[in-house]
């Protein structure tokens, strides 16, 4: 067998074996990965709108909105995902709002690659808890060093860009959801 034929044959056989093996593995892992993502989404809804007992997924005008219900089946709020650019890469959030769309119930970071130790602190409790029960007439405001007033939150020291990004993403998402649900301002 000449050299070229042997080279071609080797790479072809290796490629075939590898492709076959990988499709077997991915057949096995795909449902698990999907389930993990679903699980993460579910936990986020329960976290941002408390105390959620059950929720329903509704798609309105192409936007997925989760309607959250408490233990006596009353609508206690909505949750939705929103994303946008951060300081490094994309930030994806789950945002929970009250039924009148004028109060933020809570937020959760689904995805972010902000600098660890600085922008990464948007994942931390002190930052996220600022949004719990925040009254928002029009949009969330951001202050740098002053005390946060009504409808405002305080930026993380040394991570103004990341904090600003989170606030902007929430405002944009809130706008969209308000116009879809046709309530609020």
């Amino acid at each position, binding site marked *: 067998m000449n*050299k070229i034929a*042997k*080279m071609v044959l*080797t*790479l072809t056989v*290796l*490629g075939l074996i*590898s492709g076959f*093996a*990988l499709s077997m*593995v*991915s057949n*096995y*892992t795909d449902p*698990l*990965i999907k389930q*993990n993502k679903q699980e*993460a989404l579910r936990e986020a809804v329960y976290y941002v709108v408390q105390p959620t007992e059950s929720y329903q997924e509704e798609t309105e005008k192409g936007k997925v909105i989760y309607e959250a219900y408490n233990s006596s089946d009353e609508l206690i709020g909505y949750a939705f995902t929103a994303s946008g650019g951060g300081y490094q890469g994309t930030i994806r959030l789950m945002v929970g709002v009250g039924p009148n769309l004028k109060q933020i119930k809570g937020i959760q970071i689904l*995805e972010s*690659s902000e*600098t*660890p*130790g*600085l922008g990464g602190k948007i994942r931390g409790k002190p930052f996220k808890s600022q949004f719990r029960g925040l009254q928002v007439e029009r949009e969330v405001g951001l202050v740098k060093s002053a005390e946060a007033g009504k409808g405002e939150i305080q930026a993380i020291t*040394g991570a103004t860009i990341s904090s600003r990004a989170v606030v902007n993403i929430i405002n944009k998402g809130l706008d969209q959801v308000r116009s879809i649900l046709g309530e609020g301002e």
Partner: protein
Amino acid sequence: MKVNEMIKDFVKGIWKENPVFVQVLGMCPTLAVTTSLINGLSMGLATTFVLVASGLAISALRKLIPDQVRIASFMIIISSFVTVVKLLFEAHIPEISSQLGPYLPLIVTNCIILGRQEAFASKEPVGRSLLDSLGMGVGFIFALVVLGSVRELFYQGTIGGFELLGSWYKSMVIMVQPAGAFISLSLLVALFHKLSGSE
């Protein structure tokens, strides 16, 4: 094969030819993911799996692979195992997988792996290759765990999540950032060479 040689094949990767502290290979994951012990450990384990699996495969196939396409063949084999690891991590430990981010699939480009295939597995029998890659893997894990622990300790006063320094400790943000990685790695390399008595 004599027991002496077997031990030598295995141990050299941990100490005398440690991939991180002596050969200074695989710097990208070493610097990027060692922000905590658990991250360093999982990166080390994932890399070791790929190292051992591809070492075995390549050493077993070494007589069948023509010289001219050996690097391409190695890459097919290595990247297949990396994809397997990535999928398994995402399926079973999604938390850690999202912590490691792009560095998990980037094991493909880890030069320790290609280096061992080229320098060892493609020339030696399966048994020796297994010991060699296991040794190198353990050496890599050792380095990442030490580095991860040091950085985690100085950043938040914990190692592996256990609080070692009390609440009086003021966290050093620089330790989880790239600069902290370079500083701690260089100090560790210096310390390693001091301990092992080399120049």
